């Protein structure tokens, strides 16, 4: 038999052959298939779980970011800004106002005025809306208000410092009054001098208010309401007057000697 014929015979015989598998073979196969199916289900659930977790994280982060944005918006509310008129700058402002509006504002104002104006602008911009903001925002607002007040108090000093001519005139007035009274042999106690200075302080304050009154300033009105701020300002002015009075008196006394 030639090799090819012999191989054909083998092929035929083997192709015809069928071997019945045992019963356990199907059980084994079906159990393997079901376990694989369970494995697939587990994998599917695992993947779904991961996907759900990622989506959840995204939603939470988006909510968090949005809340932060809303809080920031509520935190800094822009109020219809009133005209940024410098409070208590009577010596320079009226002149500036009378410039017929042709000159640039920056060139007409003193550096101290510009500083005051800037602060007022910030004060105007950042107004806490306490009624509608959450607690955290309220705390922030309170801090802001405190900061603004502190700055305002500092600015009061600068304010009065910028009005030397007026104050000096008042001091001289007081000194002259005292001199006049002393010449007519009326001796004045310290308390009486103080009361004169107080009077001068009141007049100065009234004058400055009057000058301010020419400009319609929402911040000035607000400052009027805030008596506390005025109180500080008055005391400050009184101190300045007293110091000036003592200086002038000492200078006069030294000159007379």
């Amino acid at each position, binding site marked *: *038999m030639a*090799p090819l014929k*012999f*191989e054909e*015979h*083998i*092929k035929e*015989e*083997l*192709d*015809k*052959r*069928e*071997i*019945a*598998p*045992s019963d356990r*073979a*199907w059980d*084994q*196969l*079906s159990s*393997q*298939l079901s376990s*694989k*199916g369970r494995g697939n289900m587990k994998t599917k659930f695992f993947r779904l779980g991961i996907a759900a977790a990622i989506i959840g994280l995204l939603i939470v982060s988006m909510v968090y970011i949005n809340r932060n944005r809303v809080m920031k918006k509520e935190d800094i509310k822009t109020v219809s800004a009133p005209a940024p008129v410098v409070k208590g700058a009577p010596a320079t402002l009226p002149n500036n106002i009378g410039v017929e509006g042709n000159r640039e504002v920056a060139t007409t104002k003193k550096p101290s005025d510009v500083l005051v104006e800037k602060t007022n602008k910030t004060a105007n911009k950042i107004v806490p809306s306490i009624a509608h903001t959450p607690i955290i925002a309220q705390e922030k607002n309170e801090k802001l208000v405190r900061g603004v007040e502190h700055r305002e108090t500092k600015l009061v000093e600068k304010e009065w410092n910028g009005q030397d001519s007026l104050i000096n005139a008042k001091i001289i007035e007081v000194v002259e009054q005292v001199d006049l009274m002393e010449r007519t042999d009326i001796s004045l106690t310290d308390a009486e001098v103080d009361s004169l200075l107080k009077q001068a302080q009141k007049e100065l304050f009234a004058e400055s208010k009057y000058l301010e009154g020419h400009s319609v300033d929402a911040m000035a009105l607000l400052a009027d309401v805030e008596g506390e701020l005025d109180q500080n300002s008055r005391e400050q002015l009184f101190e300045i007057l007293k110091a000036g009075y003592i200086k002038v008196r000492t200078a006069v006394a030294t000159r007379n000697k």
Partner: protein
Amino acid sequence: MKIISFYNNEKLLLKKAKSGNGEAQKWLYNKYAPRMLSVCRQYIKDLQFAEDVMVDGFVKVFKNLDSFRNEGSFEGWIRKIMIRESITYLRKNQPVVYDDELYERSAANQISETSYLDVEEIQLLIDALPDGYKMVFIMYAVEGYSHREIADILQVTESTSKSQLFKARKVLRDKLSELGVRNKTKGSGN
């Protein structure tokens, strides 16, 4: 009648088996398992191991039904999987040595009459072959693979495949001649 027509439609069954229908899978298994076990048995001497390999092969078949494109016959596709599984099993259990030494025994004894060989005897002849010879011989002579295909599947060179086939044929001829001589002796004794 409806049931018969349902089960005759193999494409429909394959579709159902793909979606994990147990009945369809069992039907396909019952249809092809005996032939596939025969295929596995060609390569693996032990029937139990051959059955285990067949089961693993069917797991792969049902798991990868999506990759069957209905381009060739489903049986041919399963058969390929079974052959590969059997080869993997042989490789896993012991490294296959592709013996390049010439088979020293004489091939002079030619068999003139082999019609008495039944399938069991043929299987015994094949079982006696070394694994390297056996795999190449079955793939080439029984399954109809080319040397290139065999070289690809077994990851050997084409020349190795050819030499393995040559040696396998030689061994088989020797064995057949021995059997023939024995048979003749038996026949003359009777």
